[in-house]
């Protein structure tokens, strides 16, 4: 009997074995057979283990595989057994201002290549860093100067200043993101603003909107949002820019400008009307008929039937 169980590839037990391929684990929930346990312990344990391992291998060898240099890799499913973690889950990183904006606008993250194609050199060059493309004007030996340039105009210095400015701006934005993240992470501040908001709401939640309430000592006046207006007089260029921005917004972003709901739609069900008018033959047939009717005055088509 021992020999038989050793020979088989399939394992059949009263309670089917619980296999967890994710953790390479098999659990045999059948009660231990007391007789064989007492008879020969080592043989009993080995045959138990063999049956379990056979079942585990059966499930492992049916998993989908992926080729690799060291032979085929079996793709393991996620484990069924839940084991406690060793460390808490990582906290999500706070979003930068740009990331929040990109998420709101649906802008996809694009990985920019580190290298850039140089047409003159006919080669790939670094975008930044050593011999970077962003330092091309500073490093090339001759540079064009605009006609109306001052006598002391230095194109290299201008390009360098512009580059340094971009770097400084990026650093400034980074610092702002860091402080913003730190402020958001501070639970004390968050709670404080929360309480202040609740208090402000309760203070105007009486019948008189807080006008006849008892004032406490040291109670401050509620401050609303200060409205900001554009100055009445603006430079022409600013005004032009503002109107162009408005126009482009109207044109480009279809989602932002609210569409007028079709008033007709609610009153008249066009589809139903067409179906009724065409006696179920559809709009095309109706159109054909109408055209035919009009042309019948000219003495052509089947419009004369009516």
């Amino acid at each position, binding site marked *: 009997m021992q020999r038989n169980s050793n020979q088989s590839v399939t394992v059949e037990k009263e309670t089917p074995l619980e296999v967890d391929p994710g953790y390479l684990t098999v659990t045999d929930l059948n009660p231990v057979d007391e007789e064989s346990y007492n008879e020969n312990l080592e043989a009993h344990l080995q045959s138990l283990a063999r049956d379990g391992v056979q079942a585990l291998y059966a499930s492992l060898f049916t998993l989908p595989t992926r080729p*690799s240099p060291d032979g085929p890799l079996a793709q393991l499913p996620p484990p069924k057994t839940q084991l*406690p973690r060793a460390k808490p889950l990582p906290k999500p990183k706070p979003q930068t201002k740009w990331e929040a904006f990109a998420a709101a606008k649906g802008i996809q993250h694009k990985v920019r290549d580190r290298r850039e194609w140089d047409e003159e050199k006919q080669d790939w060059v670094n975008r930044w860093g050593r011999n970077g493309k962003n330092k091309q004007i500073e490093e090339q030996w001759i540079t064009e100067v605009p006609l109306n340039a001052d006598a002391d105009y230095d194109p290299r210095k201008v390009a360098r200043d512009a580059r340094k400015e971009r770097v400084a701006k990026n650093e400034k934005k980074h610092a702002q993101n860091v402080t913003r993240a730190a402020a958001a992470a501070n639970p004390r501040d968050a709670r404080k603003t929360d309480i202040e908001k609740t208090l402000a709401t309760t203070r105007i939640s009486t019948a008189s909107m807080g006008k006849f309430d008892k004032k406490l000592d040291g109670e401050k006046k509620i401050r609303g949002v200060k409205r900001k207006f554009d100055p009445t007089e603006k430079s022409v260029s600013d005004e032009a820019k503002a109107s162009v921005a408005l126009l482009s917004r109207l044109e480009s972003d279809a989602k932002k400008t609210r569409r007028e709901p079709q008033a007709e739609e609610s009153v008249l069900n066009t589809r139903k009307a067409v179906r009724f008018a065409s006696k179920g033959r559809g709009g095309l047939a109706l159109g054909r008929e109408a055209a035919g009717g009009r042309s019948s005055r000219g003495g052509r088509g089947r419009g004369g039937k009516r």
Partner: protein
Amino acid sequence: MLRTIKPKNARSKRAMDARSPKEVEDARTAIFVKGTHTGETLNAVMRDLMALKRPNAISFNKKNPIHPFDSNTSSISSLEFWAGKNDASLFLVGQTTKKRPNGLTFVRMYDGQVLDMMEVGVDSWTGMDSLKTPKSTPGHKPLMHFASELFDTHPRYIQLKSMLMDFFNGEVVDSICLPGLEHVISVSCAPTPASLNNAPVNMYPNQQPSAPEDVSSLPKIHIRTYTTRLLSSGTRIPRVELTLMGPNLDLSLRRHKAADTELLKQAMKRPKLKKTDIEKGLGKKRKNLEVDEMGDLRGRVHVGKQDLNKLQTRKMKGLKGGELDAEEDDGQKSDDGDDTPRKKKRKQA
């Protein structure tokens, strides 16, 4: 309260990043600690278990006055300190006393705190060296085998299973090289005594931690380690044969400390499933939905089976005069009542 450390150079930053919490965790590192006195047996047992656990194992050479179950000592804080220093989350403490000879204590940590503990006594032992059989390669993942219904029913054995799985096999991997699986750790129990089968299961083991438990009634645990040999069977699934590799341990359960429910709840938190994983079919089941190669979500709708008998085909004069045909059909078929509605209509007419 830990102060937040800011890395001063790239190397320390990398080291800190390696230690920071991750969504999919690395294998747990285990520290093997000797108590005030460990006999020859315990030293050998710990050496063999360490050979199985390598390379995620650290051994402490010196003896340490440590008693994890004695809350009066500073043992717990030492464990927590060592865990932080070595980035380890498992301990195996060996200690032999007159009252509890050859005791091994498994300690599991979560977030730098002790989650749960379990003490076992080594009753008998056969080392890896005493068996002249092939051994597994260090660092290869073992298979695990548990055999007894107690691993599903009894809280002590559930804890044991979870602890041993975490100890040897807790790492989540997405793929594995099948020829690399060389050995199996088999954990089985002695037959369950009748008293344990009929005893009411204590649903709230945390309620009375001080209540003394009758440990002697708990069946013994046999840990065996085998190397596997795959033989061709004519099918895709090979036939497995086992060879004893060692170490072989016969253990009995002793003291334990169950995990604090609140801490355990935190430790059991899973990361949120990503959108791609859900689309792949993990988590909640999504039937009849698929993402095509253009990235569009496409659904399949079941419209029921079409009854072709009710299909209105083109009416033609030639087909209409089927009175004779219909009669012939009726004549051929027996009166078992499987008439289509169309035929019925014709009969009525």
